[in-house]
């Protein structure tokens, strides 16, 4: 088993190195062979490990294996150790499958772009880092993966580095997530200070119910600090601003990193640390509230976006909010479930968008699309399936996962009704903007110029095959957890019970609860109502009375302007943070500290002091014999005086 895990981790690392160092001389076929091969091998071994773990005797206990001692300093000992339980299984399976499909897709998508080898090298490296993150058995190792994916994200967002907007976006992503990372690091330090160890096993074992009471303050602090890291990495309020800009990267990057995997790292962190969170309900409340607010907030922005990829980016932010709602109300399994289904349909959405982009020679503005459903049948089909999934139509995966979260928001251990209502209305908004996107892109009459319209054609099989596979998953992935209302047993939840059950029960026991309220069937109905409303409005606005949107925009022009400028958040941050920082950097830190103090005073100053002292002292060496003699005499006299002085 330990070998399998290593075999799962190794190929992407090797692939990244080979492609990175030698890829320049390879043909495109060779590069993609190495890259996709590595991803494929990783997937095979991940699935093998999953199978081995599942069929092992001894029940679903976590498999932990330490390979070598990494850090040993004083009290701190961190091994390179991997932790494999059912949560890890779900994460590795999802990550490797989606990553492999996206690697295949990239073969076709990146064909005519420059830097082919660089792309696959970074993509492989990302896969390695992400897998490290989810299999780590201790927080430092997880942090290595955490930082690693951040690095790869920066590299890949700024892939077209000659374009200023792209490199700026890369910087923005890195710097904003850094703020979150600072929180994470402080949390880890606090953790070490409290528990004296940083392995999952030992930390979680140290939170015995007896001590938990006294530790609650510290645990809450740790929980909030970890969540700060998650806010950065998973783009929640207030650190979400980097994700829309990250769309400057190539579309496969958006699909893999900013939809399916890296952004889910925050959710994984919260889920993995559930023993901590279950004893710090206040922290969980923060998680849920921010998740819910972010979900709603991002959905409202997505309503007015005209750029296809940006709309999907805001949608991702919104869906991540859902996942945090799930974790925040104590329904960790629901959150992870949604993570899995979202990985499938969101990456599918991005890849389909990429297909459209390719066909229209890089056009991204939906106002200049339209009528593509005849020209790009496969893309249209898969995009539709994904849209239905994300909107939560019954029968598709998104329905099951979103519904579990909504149920948890209402009736979960820390659930509150208002969370449910806000989340449900967000579902309606989601349906609206997704169908808006669908209609604007594929229906209606073509709004692009005639030249492009003529050239638009379906993408090659290298790109469409992954689309189809992902569409399949988007449909069936939900079947692993048939909700109770339909008479099912929610197997996914049960599957992850060995991981989450103690926490969920603890929370349930310690939480205060109002009366039963609405039944889960009623909840489902209401959410479906919202979704249906969203779809209908979208249909009306964009297919029937297509002048409606413009008239709405005019009528609510103030609101519309705010929305289309994304609530002016970027401008606010710019004014509040960036410009003062810039001013300080330039006027104080650069001019004063760097140029004057360090360069002038310390560096040049030291030189000048030395030179001056040397110049001064040089005069003693005059070559004049008599002055030498005088100096000697002086020395002798002084010394003699010192000796003679009555002490």
């Amino acid at each position, binding site marked *: 088993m330990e070998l399998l895990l290593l075999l799962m981790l190794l190929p992407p690392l090797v692939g990244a190195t080979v492609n990175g160092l030698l890829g320049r001389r390879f043909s495109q076929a060779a590069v993609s062979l190495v890259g996709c091969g590595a991803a494929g091998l990783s997937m095979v071994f991940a699935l093998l490990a999953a199978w081995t773990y599942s069929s092992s005797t001894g029940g679903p206990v976590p498999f932990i294996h330490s390979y070598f001692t990494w850090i040993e300093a004083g009290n701190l000992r961190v091994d390179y150790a991997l932790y494999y339980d059912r949560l890890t299984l779900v994460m590795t399976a999802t990550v490797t499958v989606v990553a492999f499909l996206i690697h295949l897709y990239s073969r076709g998508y990146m064909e005519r772009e420059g830097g082919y080898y660089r792309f696959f090298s970074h993509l492989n490296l990302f896969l390695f880092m992400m897998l490290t993150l989810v299999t780590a058995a201790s927080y430092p190792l997880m942090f290595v993966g955490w930082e690693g994916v951040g690095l790869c994200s920066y590299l890949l967002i700024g892939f077209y580095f000659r374009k200023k907007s792209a490199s700026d976006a890369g910087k923005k992503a890195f710097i904003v997530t850094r703020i979150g990372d600072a929180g994470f690091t402080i949390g880890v330090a606090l953790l070490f200070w409290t528990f004296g160890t940083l392995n999952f096993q030992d930390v979680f074992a140290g939170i015995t119910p007896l001590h938990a009471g006294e530790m609650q303050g510290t645990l809450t602090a740790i929980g909030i600090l970890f969540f700060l890291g998650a806010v950065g990495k998973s783009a929640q309020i207030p650190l979400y601003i980097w994700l829309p800009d990250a769309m400057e990267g190539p579309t496969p990057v958006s699909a893999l990193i900013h939809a399916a995997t890296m952004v889910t790292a925050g959710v994984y962190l919260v889920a993995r640390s559930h023993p901590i969170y279950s004893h710090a309900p206040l922290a969980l409340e923060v998680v849920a509230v921010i998740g819910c607010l972010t979900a709603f907030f991002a959905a409202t922005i997505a309503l007015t976006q005209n750029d296809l990829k940006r709309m999907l980016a805001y949608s991702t932010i919104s869906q991540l909010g859902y996942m945090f709602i799930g974790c925040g109300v104590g329904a960790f399994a629901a959150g992870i479930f949604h993570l899995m289904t979202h990985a499938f349909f969101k990456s599918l959405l991005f890849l389909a968008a990429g297909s459209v982009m390719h066909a229209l020679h890089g056009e991204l503005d939906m106002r200049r699309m339209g009528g593509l459903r005849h020209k790009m049948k496969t893309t249209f089909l898969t995009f539709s399936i994904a849209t239905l999934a994300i909107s939560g139509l019954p029968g598709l995966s998104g329905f099951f996962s979103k519904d579990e979260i909504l149920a948890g928001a209402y009736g979960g251990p820390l659930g509150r009704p208002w969370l449910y209502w806000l989340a449900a209305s967000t579902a309606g908004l989601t349906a609206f903007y997704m169908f808006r996107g669908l209609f604007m892109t594929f229906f209606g009459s073509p709004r692009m110029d005639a030249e492009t319209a003529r050239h638009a054609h379906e993408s090659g099989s290298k790109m469409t095959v992954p689309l189809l596979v992902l569409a399949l998953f988007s449909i069936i992935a939900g079947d692993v957890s048939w909700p109770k209302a339909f008479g099912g047993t929610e197997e996914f939840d049960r599957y992850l019970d060995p991981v989450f059950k103690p926490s969920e029960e603890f929370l349930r026991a310690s939480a205060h609860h109002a009366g039963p309220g609405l039944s889960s069937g009623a909840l489902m109905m209401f959410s479906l109502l919202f979704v249906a409303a969203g779809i209908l409005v979208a249909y009306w606005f964009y297919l029937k009375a297509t002048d409606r949107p413009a008239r709405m925009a005019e009528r609510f022009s103030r609101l519309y302007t705010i929305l289309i400028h994304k609530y002016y958040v970027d401008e606010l941050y710019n004014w509040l943070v960036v410009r003062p920082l810039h001013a300080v950097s330039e006027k104080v830190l650069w001019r004063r500290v760097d140029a004057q103090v360090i360069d002038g005073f310390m560096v040049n100053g030291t030189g000048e002091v030395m030179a001056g002292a040397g110049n001064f002292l040089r005069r003693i060496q005059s*070559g*004049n014999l008599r002055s030498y003699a005088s100096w000697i005499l002086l020395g002798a006299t002084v010394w003699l005086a010192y000796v003679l002085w009555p002490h």
Partner: protein
Amino acid sequence: MIPLSHVLTLSVILFVIGAAGFVFRTNIITVFMCIELMLNAVNLAFIGFSRHLGNLDGQLFVFFVIVVAAAEAAVGLAIIIALYRNRRSLNIEDLNSMKM
């Protein structure tokens, strides 16, 4: 008998005179002679101590000093001659090649 302090006083006076000459004169041969004067002052001190401590070693040391002074004088004057050939001057101020 002659008190030791008187002997040493004479020695010191001679030494200081020699030092003064060393510092203030410019002709290099004169300077050299002042050095010899200083050496002699030291010799006197040795003899004085030898007399008053009843130890013959002091006088032996003076013997060695005289021998070494002779050797030193020979070599030193040879150097002065060589210098004079090069610089044409016996002024100590002109012999400042050791300047930094």
